[in-house]
């Protein structure tokens, strides 16, 4: 029995190492600087972490700007996805109305279509409307990716809040708006924050649309993709590490909501 337990636990350890070791190795490559990259053979335990690699990466002209662009795009995406998605989710959760199913199907359908098919024609229309190569334009595109997710998840969040609480507020003289703001919203807030964080990550990680919709105002992913073939290895690794840090942090922040969100959004 203890032998089986040992095998079981070492299995867990092996899988955890398979997940974590590559992240550790790119972190080591990112902070190790050029010396660590060109070292051969590499020490299996990276020697001495300096922040040289990361620092020289951040010192490159364009990296800061790309990072700032990525953050701006992700924040805009987050705001638009929640502001448009949460009311729609509330409508799906609280009302039986004609067309609700049609809307649900439209929302679900967006998942079956590749980003490429949406991004390509947008390059043309974005130029016409003057939003090509802007953070706002990329955020519009990213919102089409994050919005369906925000609608479905917030619908399930609102569904989980008893209707009676809202009705009680009406009895005590609240208007529909006041009841929604003061009773329902505070209860749904943690879930909505988690959804917003997910929208941020969806945008932060997106490569294809960001690459075709920008030229000079690149996001970090688009920048890295554009310089991939011409930049030295240690800069690529620093960039990759920079991409990973916020994502891992965010997954940690929303860990309690992961299931609620993925379990529901993928039903």
């Amino acid at each position: 029995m203890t032998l089986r337990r040992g095998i079981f636990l070492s299995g867990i350890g092996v899988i955890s190492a398979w997940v974590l070791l590559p992240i550790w190795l790119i972190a080591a490559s990112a902070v190790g600087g050029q010396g660590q990259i060109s070292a051969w053979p590499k020490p299996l335990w990276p020697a001495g972490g300096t922040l040289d690699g990361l620092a020289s990466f951040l010192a490159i002209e364009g990296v800061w700007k790309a990072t700032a662009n990525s953050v701006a795009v992700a924040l805009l995406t987050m705001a638009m996805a929640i502001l448009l998605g949460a009311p729609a989710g509330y409508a799906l959760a609280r009302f039986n109305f004609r067309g609700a199913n049609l809307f649900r199907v439209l929302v679900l359908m967006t998942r079956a279509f590749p980003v490429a098919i949406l991004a390509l024609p947008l390059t043309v229309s974005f130029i016409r409307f003057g939003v090509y190569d802007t953070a706002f334009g990329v955020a519009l595109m990213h919102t089409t990716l994050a919005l369906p997710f925000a609608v479905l998840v917030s619908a399930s969040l609102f569904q989980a809040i008893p209707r009676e609480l809202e009705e009680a507020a009406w009895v005590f003289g609240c208007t529909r708006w006041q009841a929604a703001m003061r009773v329902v919203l505070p209860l749904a807030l943690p879930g909505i924050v988690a959804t917003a964080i997910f929208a941020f990550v969806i945008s932060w990680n997106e490569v294809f649309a960001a690459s075709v919709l920008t030229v000079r105002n690149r996001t970090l992913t688009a920048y890295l993709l554009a310089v991939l073939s011409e930049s030295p290895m240690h800069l690529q690794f620093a960039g990759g590490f920079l991409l990973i840090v916020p994502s891992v942090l965010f997954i940690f922040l929303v860990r309690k909501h992961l299931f609620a969100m993925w379990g529901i959004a993928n039903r």
Partner: protein
Amino acid sequence: MPIRWLPYALIAPAALFLGVLFVIPLVQTGALAFQVHDAWALGNFTRMTGDLNFADALRNSFQLVLVAVPVQLCLAMGMAMMLRHLQRGRAIVLWVWSIPLGISDLAAGLVWLTILTDQGYLNSVLFHLGVIAAPEGWLTYETPFALFMAVAIAEIWRATAIVLLILVAGVQMLPKEYGEAAAVFGASPWQAFTKVTLPLLRPSIQSALILRTVLAFEAFAVVMALGGRNFPVLVSEAYAWKHFNQDTGVAAAYALVIMAISVAATLVFLRLLRTPVEQQT
């Protein structure tokens, strides 16, 4: 009664947004793909299929999906079953295992590049073990199999987490009594798994397969990071036609091919793994 129009007012912004930025581009892509110089023609498709990289891209995309997705499903199933038997520390293990969920395919490609590049960690380990004497190239067009494996491993590393979450969510909804009943009637753990757990998880497996297949056909930055254009896939070709050749028409034709494959795969999974009527709740 203001209630009748209220739900419509609430969904209107989202519906309008998706109409303008989803439905219209969808139609436009079709127009882009089937038009050459503003006239309806199949020129973009003949140029696409006539391109040297088309057959390779198609084959590579399918190979990647056919290898990565089944491995992800089996691995995630194993992980979900392990989590079921873990009493202490379940939350932390689950968190660690779901970390790759937040990692983009570009970052995942760069992560595996640190390991698999000529002077990377894999070669260093092999050197220390005495297997190789000098750096060995894994990611060149001369080593297509190693390059393919590298891309597949990076995809498996990154995207198993999504499958895991969907399966764990499904496992949590299974009634415990079914497993107990199977044990009472003398089923071995393996029998209980194949005869009770697997059939009940069918809806979760279905949505995991649909999501992963669609997304695996979209994999692109991971390929660019590891192989550049040595390993063409459908999306990287669409990107190359748009970015290097400035030819949106052919890129749109590629996009339509990807969409057709995604929709077909979705329909196949919906049909193959449909939940029998008596199981629906």
